[in-house]
């Protein structure tokens, strides 16, 4: 650090341009902070509002009003003065520790270092505060055959619809549970796409558990719409309930889907199988940064530990939106604003009273957005056989490790995901456990007869997205070099 301000001298980096990130960046920059919004995609919106600026699906009723709400977040961002760097892959966030002499011999405040790649060039960017808005990813749905080409996530299929106007053709089966499954089916109905069957895996007993929470759900201003939409889908499409024992079959490519219902096995021909059983926080970046996390028994996932403002256990690093625990797009927006206010406070731009006063309406809106969430979490908790699969099912797609191999490792003395990772290589592939972490945790916990909280989660490592050796070797070392790389 030369003491001379670099051209890219940002107070705040917001990572992820979904609802939380868009709202956070707009608010912080609008109040005078210098903000850079880093996002992997070419256009803002995150996954929920993916391609909202440019989708070829012009008929607004196909994607629905909740989707088009995303466009309303873009004006404030433009007007705020935040710098948006699309196509930025963040692969590391680190806060150098305060103790010991600094290797670079410089003084001044410690900063947070962000490793990122843009256009095939890597650089280290230093900022004072980071708001991670890394969103959610689809919960793994490990069934036999889920690695066959032709099997995709329902969320993946929705991305294809939003970005490219693509819908399934040929025999198509949707399977699983959760709001996104019903939303996608409804969107396909509006678009005139063919769906042969929806296999609903929601366990019957979930309804009994969720029923006491129904009044709260019915008060929700947003979620009631989902119920109407589900009813329309049930009226117009073939929906098969109480499905268990799902399998995808085919020789090299998906040919059919087998399922059990009331103990009877059935087979459907299928060219495309769209799987979904809810979403979980995309926590790889926070985990690799060293943010503490906890097991959420209701949502059955790990979530980074945050306070009311999204602050994590790592100083100067906050988390907003679904990346901190699933709350949905509207809640994410408000959480982003709260995290931005807290960042402004921590940077000395507003005092505590100003922060708290400004936060009041956002906090009220957040509470409204979260109304009824408990009902959804309880109703759509995935059935145990789809979270803790049978021995022959691949759990780690990258290294092709089965649930049986994980159980065998537990019997040999591997008591947690990290030992299983070292022993079996599960979670060591390029996806870094994103598609196996929740399953491996639950399989080990079930095998040991303890809570997932006790067995823990993978310790994830940067780079959280792969980078090439050439990029790493050419990492610019001086401020001038960094500027030259980043200005493109």
């Amino acid at each position: 650090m030369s003491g001379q301000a670099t051209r890219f001298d940002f107070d705040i980096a917001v990572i992820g341009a979904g609802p939380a990130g868009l709202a956070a960046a707009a608010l912080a920059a609008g109040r005078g902070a210098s903000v850079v919004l880093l996002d992997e995609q070419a256009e803002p919106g995150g996954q929920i509002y993916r391609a909202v600026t440019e989708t070829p699906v012009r008929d607004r009723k196909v994607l629905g009003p909740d989707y088009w709400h995303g466009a309303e977040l873009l004006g404030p961002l433009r007007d705020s003065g935040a710098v948006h760097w699309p196509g930025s892959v963040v692969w590391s966030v680190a806060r150098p520790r305060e103790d010991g002499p600094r290797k670079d011999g410089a003084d001044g405040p410690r900063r947070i270092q962000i490793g990122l790649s843009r256009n095939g060039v890597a650089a280290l960017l230093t900022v004072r505060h980071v708001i991670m808005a890394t969103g959610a990813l689809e919960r793994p749905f490990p069934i036999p055959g889920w690695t066959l080409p032709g099997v995709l996530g329902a969320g993946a299929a929705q991305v294809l619809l939003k970005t490219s106007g693509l819908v399934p053709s040929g025999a198509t089966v949707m399977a699983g549970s959760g709001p996104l499954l019903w939303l996608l089916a409804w969107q396909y109905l509006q678009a005139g796409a063919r769906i042969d069957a929806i296999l609903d895996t929601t366990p019957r007993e979930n309804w009994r558990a969720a029923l006491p929470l129904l009044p709260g759900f019915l008060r929700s201003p947003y979620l009631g719409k989902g119920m109407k939409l589900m009813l329309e889908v049930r009226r117009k499409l073939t929906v098969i309930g109480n499905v268990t024992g799902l399998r995808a079959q085919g020789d090299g490519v998906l040919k059919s889907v087998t399922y059990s219902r009331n103990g009877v096995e059935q087979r459907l021909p299928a060219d495309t199988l769209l799987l979904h059983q809810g979403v979980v926080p995309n926590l790889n970046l926070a985990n690799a940064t060293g943010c503490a996390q906890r097991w959420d028994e209701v949502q059955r996932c790990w979530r980074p530990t945050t306070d009311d403002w999204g602050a994590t256990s790592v100083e100067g690093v906050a988390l907003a939106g679904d990346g901190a625990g699933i709350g949905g797009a509207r809640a994410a927006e408000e959480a982003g604003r709260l995290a931005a206010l807290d960042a402004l406070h921590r940077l000395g731009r507003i005092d505590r009273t100003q922060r708290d006063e400004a936060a009041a309406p956002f906090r009220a809106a957040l509470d409204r957005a979260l109304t009824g969430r408990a009902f959804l979490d309880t109703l759509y908790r995935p059935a145990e056989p789809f979270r803790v699969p049978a021995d022959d099912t691949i759990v780690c797609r990258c290294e092709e490790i089965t649930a049986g191999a994980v159980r065998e490792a537990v019997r040999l003395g591997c008591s947690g995901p990290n030992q299983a990772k070292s022993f079996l290589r599960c979670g060591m592939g390029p996806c870094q456990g994103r598609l196996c972490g929740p399953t491996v945790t639950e399989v080990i916990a079930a095998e040991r007869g303890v809570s997932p909280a006790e067995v823990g989660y993978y310790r994830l490592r940067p780079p959280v997205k792969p980078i090439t050796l050439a990029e790493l070797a050419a990492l610019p070392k001086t401020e001038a070099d960094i500027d030259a790389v980043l200005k493109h």
Partner: protein
Amino acid sequence: MFRRLPEVAGDAIPFTIDGRPASARAGDSVAAALLANGVTTCRNTPVSGAPRGPYCMMGVCFDCLVTIDGTGNRQGCQVRVAPGMAVETQDGKREVER
């Protein structure tokens, strides 16, 4: 298998899949363009040789890895198709030089 909605307009973008001519639309990722052209399998795994295709479409599963303009192991769902782009499906471990 996927098809375009009839309302989707826009110029066709020519590119190649394993040397064969193919067509995409502005905004398509490489993975979306593969599916739109009827290619559901984009690689064989380096572990067992099992075929894989796009699964998550949001950059987290790494199953849509392909070689793009000679650079291997690129996430097809994270790269937009450009005119003349050469996309190659990957067989097992890609060559170290690529």
